[in-house]
């Protein structure tokens, strides 16, 4: 499970954007914006981390976050990416 090649992530005006480039830009026209957690998950997926590792990463950055709700968030985010065809499985 990894983000497809051809997406670039960049902060613009304090907001995180993802745009498709190269061949992918012809088929994926949408511009994606990410919140802070979304950005961490995206970056972890780019590095090839699995869901458990992503949850640990988020818990290490947000003191006091409940593991169960982080798991839910990560799963929801990943399923959204899957729906949009952004992941290479």
């Amino acid at each position: 499970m990894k983000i497809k090649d051809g997406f670039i992530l960049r902060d613009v005006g304090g907001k995180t954007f993802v745009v498709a480039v190269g061949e992918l830009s012809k088929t994926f026209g949408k511009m994606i914006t990410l919140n802070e957690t979304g950005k961490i998950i995206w970056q972890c997926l780019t590095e090839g981390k699995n869901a458990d590792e992503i949850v640990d990463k988020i818990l290490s950055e947000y003191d006091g976050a409940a593991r169960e709700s982080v798991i839910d968030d990560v799963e929801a985010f990943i399923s959204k990416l899957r729906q949009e065809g952004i992941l290479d499985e």
Partner: protein
Amino acid sequence: MFKVKIADFIIEIDNKYDFVKNQCREYEVNGKKSDFAVSCTYEEIEAERDLSPGNNFSDGYLESICLYRHICLELPERGALVFHSAVIEVDKMAYAFAARSGTGKSTHISLWRKYLGDRVKVINGDKPIIRFNGSEFIAYGTPWCGKEGWGENISSPLKSICFIERSEKNKIEKLEKPEAASRLMRQILMPADEQKAVKTLDLADKMLKTLDTWLLYCNISEEAAKIAYEAMSGKDEK
């Protein structure tokens, strides 16, 4: 083939039709050197036609649109971009107005002209080039300036960007940068090439860090121009 000076770049344009040369008359220069060259193929012109079915545009017009897109794509790596907006100059400072099409950028600019008279010059009514010179952003006129043809071969430091929404009452407020970012991104061309896209995003980020960003709710009364001018220029006329 001819050369133009636009946004302080010398650009060689290898054209097939006269349309673009006529359009660029006021920007034409002589000389051997150029910063970059653009041209487009017959296939690209046909592809351009397919983008606007039913419009019956001339080949020359379509070539011109296509050439400007090529110019746009050369700019980001040179510290500049085309910002889909109307840019005006008042007292040596430039102000950019952006909105969804049909919101009334041109109407709003007309109100500034009515309110401030000859102090207002339209640098470009539709597709100005914004270039970073190392310390500030400069807005430049270009031969491509929208259906009204509002524009001049002039430039001025850009002070702020104002996004326009229609409303019954006039109101202007500072726009937070993350919100301004989403609106700005809709008004710039994102290159397919990765390096160019990265440069574009970084320039957009620098624009937001450097420039004031405003959100104007306005109707079509002169008061709309008055409150916008007073807030954006930092001057209260009275």
